[in-house]
């Protein structure tokens, strides 16, 4: 992945959520964003995923410049997988139908081909026995794993994960974390926001620490261990690492 961001700004209700943010990273698979609540990490992820428009600035991922109009961003979202904090599965559809919907209706695969893809991903993540269950019949961890399978089934260019385990208790979150580690081993290009610092260190090729809409610290996990950044050290102490 090659990500370049220049002078990015985003304001909500006259409050700067992303402020003059600049970044350039390359030759990485997984970029992990950490930071306290309100630091702008989710907003940054949403801008990169195409769910939010920045007020100004420039974003380029793997040579593709983002935010060039509504149609372009819709196409961008179709090419990528997005996983939300609260799973966001469609409650009226079964797990299988949740995976089939984008394959059939957005990517225009045949029903037969879509079924093969969906069953492949369900089997790959040991979810086959839940294929015909509705989200209300699944645990939080199972729901999130289905959401990840749905995002992966379209063969995305990038996978964006917004705090995928924050709504889960530790036992359930471990099954989701294992799934994401498996994706890392498969060299999936990922951008992830998390509050699980120990997991962030395991998964990240490159880490960003954000405060008040700007990047306070960045680098490899090893760099994060040895930095003397006061804000980062305070944050790490606060979250118990």
């Amino acid at each position, binding site marked *: 992945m090659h990500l370049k961001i220049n002078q990015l700004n985003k304001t909500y209700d006259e409050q700067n959520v992303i402020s003059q943010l600049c970044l350039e990273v390359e030759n990485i698979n997984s970029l992990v964003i950490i930071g306290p609540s309100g630091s702008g990490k989710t907003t940054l992820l949403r801008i990169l995923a195409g769910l939010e428009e920045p007020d100004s600035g420039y974003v380029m991922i793997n040579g593709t410049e983002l935010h060039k109009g509504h149609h372009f961003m*819709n196409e961008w979202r179709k090419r990528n997988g997005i996983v939300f904090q609260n799973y966001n599965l469609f409650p009226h559809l079964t797990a299988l139908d949740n995976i089939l919907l984008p394959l059939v209706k957005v990517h225009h695969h045949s029903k037969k081909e879509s079924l093969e893809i969906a069953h492949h991903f369900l089997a790959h993540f040991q979810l086959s026995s839940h294929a015909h269950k509705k989200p209300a019949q699944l645990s939080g961890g199972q729901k999130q794993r289905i959401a990840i399978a749905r995002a992966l089934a379209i063969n995305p260019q990038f996978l964006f994960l917004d705090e995928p385990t924050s709504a889960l208790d530790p036992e359930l979150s471990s099954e989701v974390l294992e799934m994401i580690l498996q994706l890392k081993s498969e060299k999936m290009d990922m951008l992830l926001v998390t509050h699980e610092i120990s997991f962030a260190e395991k998964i990240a090729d490159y880490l960003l620490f954000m405060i008040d809409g700007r990047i306070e610290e960045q680098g490899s996990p090893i760099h994060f261990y040895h930095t003397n950044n006061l804000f980062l050290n305070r944050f790490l102490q606060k979250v118990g690492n």
Partner: protein
Amino acid sequence: MFILLFISILIVFSLNKLDYQLKWDSVYRYRLKFFYGWLHTIAISFTALMMSLMIGFSVAFMRKSRNIILKMLSRVYVEIIRSTPLLVQILIFFYLIAAAFSLNNRYIVGILTLSVFSGAYVSEIIRGGLDSISESQLESAKAIGLSHYQTYRFIVIPQVIKRVLPALAGQFVSLIKDSSLLSIIAISEFTLNAQEVNSYTYSTLESYIPLAFGYFILTFPISLVSAYLEKKTNYAS
């Protein structure tokens, strides 16, 4: 069922107490009149239901629209209709609007009035259903690349229909009973026919008991379906 039994006992007790003998012979002669009136009521109510669904969906989407004029118009329509009696609406629609537009077929006027009246309530039911779809689902639809139309077709509408069916069934029951007010503009529906039989025979109770029974056998199955749907929807959620 207990309530039904209680009401039956109460009626029988009251008749005995007043020493009132029901005489069905005179009313029985008009059984076909009752039947045709009953069929008219079904036809009027069903047509008005279909039209009120169309009006209800359109107005609900207008209410959710970003266009301020559409929003305002839909709001004014709903508030005016819901704040005035149906009887007054029927009279204004028939003697003023329909007359001004030379609309002489009272059946058409009656169906239109009922549809406009019921449409306001249906629109509020649909709007409630639309509001019950969380923003996160709409965002998820956007994230997987569904178009606006696809989002409504595959995500919003199936869930809204499921959620509003019990309330819509209740509205249909009200609509059937409200259709009795069309007798005021001499539409030959169930109630008017019962009134006419009463005036021919002077057998008030004997004319109106079949009326109550006729409405009951129309509305009770819908109430049962509504209760079943409500239970099923609650279970699913």
